[in-house]
Each structure stands twice: as C-alpha cells, then as structure tokens.
C-alpha cells in the first residue's frame, strides 16, 4: 500500500512539475525517504533524506550556462505562540511584556547547496520565503493581525529561541549535488518538533532565476504509551483526573496493607 502511495505521489509530483513548467525546459523529480515519521518516547530527533533529479523534457534541450542551485524549504504545522520578556521589578524578575505570534510555522528549515546570497538576489529570496530572516511572522495585537517589523526585539528573540531548539534552521551545506543534475538533502527533525504535516518545497535555480519547482510532504505522528497518556489528559480531563485519584488511593491503600504494623 505504501509503495502504491509513494508511486501515486511521484506521479502527481511529475505531473505538477510538468504542468507548472510548460515554459521551463527541465523536469524535476523528488522523492523523500519517509512520508511518515513515528515518534515515540525515546525519540531524540531524526533526519529524512530527500533525493531529486533534473532531466530535460525535450531531446533538443540545451544545457544551461550556469550550474543549478537548490533551495529546499520545509514548513511545519502552524501554531500560536506567546513570547514573554522578563523585567526586574522591585528586585525580582517578572514576566512583564509579551507578544503573541499567530499562525506562524512551528518548524521552518531552509536547506541549500551554498549560501543564499550567492544563489539569488534578496528580492527573489524574499519572494521564495527562503530563510527565516525573510519569513513573514504575523502577531496578534488586540483583535488585529499585524506583520512584525524585522528589527522588533520580540521577533528576533522568538527566532533565536526557535533556532536554539533546532526548530528554525538555515543550512547552506545540507544539499549535496551528486552530479550537476542529481541532488540529495538531509532534512533535520528535532526531538521537540510538533506533530502534524510538514510541507516540503523544492526550488531549482540557475543564474538566480527559478527554473523548476515541486512540492512533497511528510507527516510526524506520535505513538506509544506516553502519547496515549497525553491524549487522555487533554481529551478526557475528568476521566483522567478520576483515574489519577483511583491510582493515588490504591497506592496509599497498598502501602498501608504492606507496611501494616498494628
């Protein structure tokens, strides 16, 4: 079944690449090593391998004068996050100001074969949303949704904390061109990554212009006892609470039976 799914996805990928690129002269085919990552309690992070190949779609295709550059961007499920800042008030450190970022990616990775500024000019990179420095991060102010300024300290610290957790990353050596037309990329998945859908966009540039692009995706699924407990706690709070009390009473009662001295 999995083979069938992969095959169908590949077909879709190829069709997309062809239909989207009638004016383009090459076909881009990509495949990732896993479409589903199962995360259990001992999960310490993993890496997904993406392979891609470019091939001329017409026999009379003339090779491009400039070598290919690859930009792979991955976006995780969107989330709403509060960023809080501590300040010293009357000698103690208290969370004072805060900013809510709404609908921002929980995970964002940009993988390339060389530094972004060498691949294209900043206007093109902005358009491609390559690199989290170009990422639009909207914040909720009251009932309004506003775009955060690039120099906003809440924005820069939000990105810094995300980077420290390995959730926002920019890697300029993560894509390897095995031949000028075949490439491989390692997608890092940290232990703290959110459960959900991860969209992968592959863009191929030559001389600073996009010549082919395609999409694929993978899914992060949590499994195991711990996940069962976490789900029970959020979905059935009352039952969970009652079960906890039963557990406490049983443990207490057992102890009083085992260690009974009177």
């Amino acid at each position, binding site marked *: 079944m999995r083979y069938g799914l992969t095959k169908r996805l590949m077909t879709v990928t190829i069709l997309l690449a062809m239909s989207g690129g009638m004016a383009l002269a090459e076909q881009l085919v990509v495949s990732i090593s896993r479409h589903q990552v199962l995360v259990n309690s001992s999960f310490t992070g993993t890496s997904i391998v993406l392979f891609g190949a470019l091939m001329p779609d017409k026999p009379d295709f003339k090779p491009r004068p400039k070598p290919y550059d690859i930009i792979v961007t991955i976006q995780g499920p969107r989330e*709403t996050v509060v960023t*809080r800042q501590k300040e010293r008030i009357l*000698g103690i450190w208290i*969370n004072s100001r805060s900013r809510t970022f709404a609908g921002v990616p929980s995970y964002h990775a940009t993988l390339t074969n060389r530094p972004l500024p060498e691949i294209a000019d900043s206007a093109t990179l902005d358009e491609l949303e390559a690199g989290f420095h170009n990422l639009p991060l909207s914040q909720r102010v009251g009932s309004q949704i506003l775009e955060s300024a690039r120099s906003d300290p809440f924005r820069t610290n939000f990105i810094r904390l995300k980077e420290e957790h390995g959730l926002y990353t920019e890697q300029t050596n993560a894509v390897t061109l095995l031949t000028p037309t075949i490439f491989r990329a390692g997608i890092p998945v940290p232990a703290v990554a959110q459960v959900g859908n991860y969209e992968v966009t592959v863009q191929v540039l030559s001389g600073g212009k996009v010549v082919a692009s395609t999409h694929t995706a993978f899914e992060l699924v949590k499994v195991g006892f711990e996940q069962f407990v976490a789900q029970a706690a959020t979905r059935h*709070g009352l039952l969970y609470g009652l079960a906890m009390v039963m557990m406490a009473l049983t*443990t207490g009662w057992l*102890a*009083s039976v085992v260690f009974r001295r009177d």
Partner: protein
Amino acid sequence: MQIYLPIADLPVNIFLMLGMGLAVGIISGMFGIGGGFLMTPLLIFIGIPSGVAVASVASHIAASSCSGALSYWRRNAVDMALVGMLLVGGIIGTAAGVVLFTVLRSVGQLDIVIGLSYVALLGIVGGLMINESLRVILRERSGQSTPTRRGGSHTWIHGLPLKMRFKRSRIYVSAIPVVAIGFVIGFIGAIMGIGGGFMLVPMLIYLLRVPTTTVIGTSMVLTLVTMASATIMHAVTNQLVDAVLALILMVGGVIGAQFGARAGQNMRGERLRLLLGVLVFAVGLRFAYQLVVVPADLFSLLVLDVE
C-alpha cells in the same frame, strides 16, 4: 535510565525521581507531614514546569495521606463531623485556588506567584519553628522547666456564633473558623501543591483546641479529600497532572514514609522540630534566590495552540 514524562514533555532519570520520592517520603514519615512543600520545590528546581509540579504533587499527597488516614481510621482517631465541616470550606477553597491558578497561568504570572508564595509561607513558618524550638532547647539547657500550654483556655474564636458540637474531639466551637481554616488550606494547597498539614495541625490545636488524639487523623483525611479534588480540578481545567511523574513519586513516597516514621520515633521532639524548621526555611531561601538572580534567558516561548 531515562523515562519520558508525557505532560511535562521532557525526559527525566527514573532513579532520580524515585530517590526524590523516597527522600521526601522519609522526611514526611519522620515529621508526620505530607511533604508537598518539599516535593513541589524540588521538582521545580530540577526543571519540571511549575504548573505540572503543583498539579502532579497534589495526587502524590493524596496517596501518601491515604495510607496515613487509613491507619488513623482503624484506630478510630478521626473526627468525621469536623472533617465534614472543614471540607465545606476546603472544597470551595480548592476550587477558588484552581481558578486563580488557571488565570495566573494564562497571563504568564503563575511561576512568580508560586515562587513568592513559597518564599513568604516557608520563610514565616520556618522562622517560627526555628525560633520556638530554639527557645525550648535553650530553656532546657539552663535547667528551667518548660511551661506547658494549657488546654481549654478560651480565645475570641470561641465567642463566635453558629456554635457546633464535635463529639469525637469533645469541642464546642463556632462553624465559622472551621470553614475558614478549611478554605485557607484548600486555597493554598491548590496553588502551591502542598497538602498543608504542617499549617493545618497547629491551626486545629491552637485555634480550635482539637485534642492531640484526633488532630493528626482528622488533618490526614482532610488532606486526602482536598488533594484528591485538587487533582481532579487540575486535570479538568489545566490538564497538567502528569500520571507517570505522579506514580513514581507516589511509590517512592509511600515506601520512604515507612522508614521515616521509624526513624522519627528515635529522635527527640524539639530537635526534630528545629531540623524541620531549618529545612522549611532553607527551601524558602532557595526560592528567594531564584526570584532575584538574573535569569539565564529573559525571553521565553509558550505554545498556545497548534493547527
């Protein structure tokens, strides 16, 4: 060996947690207290989010007070009428505490309020205990006889209306202070993750004149019920009760308490009280330090929801 805590969302060493449960259990058995005021801070100091620590310790205290309550029950040393009256305030207090806990968490001020509460409460209680036991010890050294507290003397509390008779404890007292004490213990317990036995017992003895025969058993049953309801309320509103964490603490705690109870019988009362006072005060100081020292990171992230 690492074990993953599903609600705290982090891995911990299972032997460290068992050891902490045992250590706190020994202390709680030695002094006849629940040990929540030590367990919650310890969990916070090793990096468990304070909300998860408070909510999970509530169920841990329910377990340790359950075995204690059962043995006092067998000896018929529980005043159920008094427990019932205390619970009227206790349940309302617990609910109020959980509501405040939820509000504080949503505005990002839970940690600071828990920290400040611990500094204030442990500082005052620890200071009083050290002061009193030192005075008794010094008086014994100088050869003077210790003045014993006289039972039966009346205070303004005994002048309040709505008087009730509690047969088992042989007291005749107004219902108002009983409900109020229950409320205070339930409220503080829900916010700070403590059973409150170390405050409840002196309150019952000095304010209501409950005799020593029923005071510990009554306190244990009250702690059991308030902490069980706090567990349920925390599970329903904040979903912060960590079953794996709580189970490890429970097992360590109930075993430790048995050893502690035996060790406690071989120690002299005032020395024991001084030791507990120093311990309580030290935990308070540790919290104060955490509040004034410059945090490692001034910024923090909290995920509200994921699409």
